[in-house]
C-alpha cells in the first residue's frame, strides 16, 4: 500500500498549467526525489500534496485515505509534514519555545531536548531563532517538520543556499535520519549530487508532466532526461 498517492493532479495558475494530469505513488520508507528544470511543477506538486495549493483537479491520498479537501493543519495531524524552500521559522521565538510548540501538536509527542541534540541546536536553544546562523535556521526548519515523528516528510529544496560540503553533509544526515526514524521522504532538489546520494527513486517532471521515473541509475541513463534536464550534470 503506498503511503502517498496523487491521482490525475492538475493545477493551473491563470493560463499557465503548472501540473498536467500528474500521477505519483510513493512507497513507505523510500526517499523519493522530484527533479526537473525550473517551472517543471516540482514545488507546485509539493504544495498540492501538503495542502498549501488549493483549487486543483485530481485527488491526493495519504495512507489510503483521501486528504484532498483537508487543510495543511489537518494533514499535519495525520502525519504529513513539510519544510519550505525558504527557511520558515518563528524569528522572535526562542529555538526551544518553537520546538515546544511543535511538540505539543505532535502525533507521537516529542522530546524537545532530544530534538535539540539530534539537530545540533543545543547551543542556540535559548536564542531567538532570527538571531541564529543560516545553517542553524535550516536545521531548525527541518527539526520543526520532524518533531513528533511524522510518517511522511515533504522537503522543498533542503540544500538551497548551502555550500557543496554543507549539501553533502545534509544529504548524509537526511539518509541517516530517514533510516533511523523510518520516515518516508519526498524531496524537491536541484543539487544532483544530493539527489543521487540519497534518493531511492527519482521522478522527473517537465512542463507539469511526469517525464520519467525509476531508480537513480535508470533515470541518469534515460536519454530524454539527459536531454531535458541533466545534460552534463549526469
Amino acid at each position: 500500500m503506498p503511503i502517498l498517492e496523487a491521482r490525475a493532479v492538475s493545477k493551473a495558475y491563470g493560463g499557465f498549467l503548472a501540473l498536467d494530469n500528474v500521477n505519483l505513488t510513493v512507497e513507505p520508507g523510500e526517499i523519493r526525489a522530484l527533479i526537473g528544470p525550473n517551472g517543471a511543477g516540482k514545488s507546485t506538486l509539493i504544495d498540492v500534496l501538503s495542502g498549501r495549493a488549493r483549487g486543483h483537479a485530481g485527488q491526493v491520498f495519504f495512507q489510503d485515505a483521501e486528504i484532498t479537501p483537508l487543510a495543511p493543519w489537518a494533514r499535519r495531524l495525520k502525519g504529513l509534514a513539510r519544510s519550505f524552500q525558504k527557511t520558515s521559522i518563528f524569528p522572535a521565538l526562542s529555538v526551544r519555545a518553537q520546538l515546544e510548540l511543535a511538540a505539543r501538536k505532535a502525533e507521537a509527542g516529542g522530546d524537545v531536548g532530544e530534538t535539540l541534540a539530534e539537530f545540533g541546536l543545543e547551543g542556540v536553544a535559548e536564542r531567538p531563532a532570527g538571531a541564529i546562523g543560516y545553517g542553524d535556521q535550516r536545521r531548525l526548519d527541518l527539526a520543526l517538520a520532524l518533531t513528533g515523528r511524522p510518517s511522511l516528510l515533504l522537503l522543498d529544496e533542503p540544500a538551497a543556499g548551502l555550500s557543496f560540503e554543507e549539501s553533502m553533509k545534509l544529504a548524509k544526515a537526511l539518509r541517516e535520519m530517514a533510516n533511523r526514524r523510518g520516515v518516508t521522504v519526498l524531496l524537491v532538489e536541484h543539487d544532483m549530487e544530493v539527489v543521487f546520494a540519497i534518493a531511492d527513486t527519482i521522478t522527473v517532471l517537465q512542463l507539469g508532466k511526469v517525464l520519467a521515473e525509476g531508480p537513480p541509475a535508470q533515470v541518469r541513463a534515460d536519454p530524454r532526461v539527459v536531454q531535458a534536464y541533466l545534460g552534463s550534470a549526469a
Partner: protein
Amino acid sequence: MNRGAFVKGVLMALAAMALGWVASKTVASALVMTLLAQSCFYALFALGVGLLIRQNGMVSFGHAAFFGLPGYLIGIGLKQTDIPIELLIPLVVLAVTTFAFLVGLVFVRVHGIAFGMLTLAIGQAVYEASTRLRGLTGGHDGLTIKFPRELFGLPLKTFQQPHGMFLIAWCVLVIVVTLVIWLAHSRLGRLTEAIRENEERAGFLGYRTLWPRAVIFAISAATTAAGGVLFALYNAYISPETVYWTSSGSALIMAVLGGSVAPWGPVLGSMVYFFLKEALGDVTTHWLGIIGISLIVVTVSFPQGLSGLAMRLLGLGARRRHADS
C-alpha cells in the same frame, strides 16, 4: 508557567495593590486622584489595544466600541430590566466579549489595512447606533446611568469619588495586567505569537490559526470593556464621543507610546499620555500637537515604545528573552 513564577506574579500583584492603597491614603489632591483613576480606565482600554498588537500583530481603530458599549448596555439594562447590577455587569462584559469573538472570527481573517478598516467600521457602526437610537441611548445628549445606591456591598459614592474609584480601578488594572502577563506566557500566548510571526508555518505544525486569533481579539475586547465598566461607574454617564473613532485613536496612541514589547507597555503609555496631557494643558491649548510630535519622536527613535526603552535601560531585554523560552 512554573509554580515559582506564579507565586512571584501573585506577590507582585499584591504589592502593587498595596502601593495603590498607600497612594489613595496619602495623596490628598482630588485632581491627582481623578487623573490617576481616569488613566486607569484608559490604561485598560489601551491594554486591550496593545494586547491585540502584541499577540496578533493587528492594529484596531475601533476598540472604542468595546469601551463604550458596556456603559450603554448597563444604562439600558438598568432602565429596561430588573437584573441586579452585580449580575448585569458581568453579563455585559460577557456580551461584549462574545460579540467581539463572533466579529473576530470574521475580522482576523484579514490583516493590515483591511483589518484596521473593518475595526473602524464596527466602531463607527456602534457610534452611529448610539446617535440614532435616541430612545435607548439618548442620542447626542448621551445617557445618564442610574446606578442603585449600593453596588457589590459598597455605597455608590465609593465608585464616584476620586480616591475610592482610583483604588478600585487600580486593583482591577493590576489584576488584568497580571492576567495579560500570564496570557503572554501561556500556551495560547505562545501560539498566537507564533501565528503572528509565521501563520503558514504554524498551520503546517498542525495548528488551526483562526480560532486562537479570534480568542485574542475577544480577550482584548474584554480587557477594554473592563475599563469601560469602570468609566461608566465613575461618570454615571456615557455619550457618543466615547465610542467615536478618535477615542480609539487616543487608545492606540497610548499603546504605541508605551510599546507592545512588554505586556504592560500600554499601561505606561496611558499614564504618560494622561499626565503629559494634563501638564501641557496648563501651558498651551495646543497640547495635542505636542503629544503628536512626542509620538513621532518615540515611534522613530524607540520603535518598541517607552516600555522597550525602559527594559533596555534596565537590561531586561535579554533576560526577558531567556525567560520567554
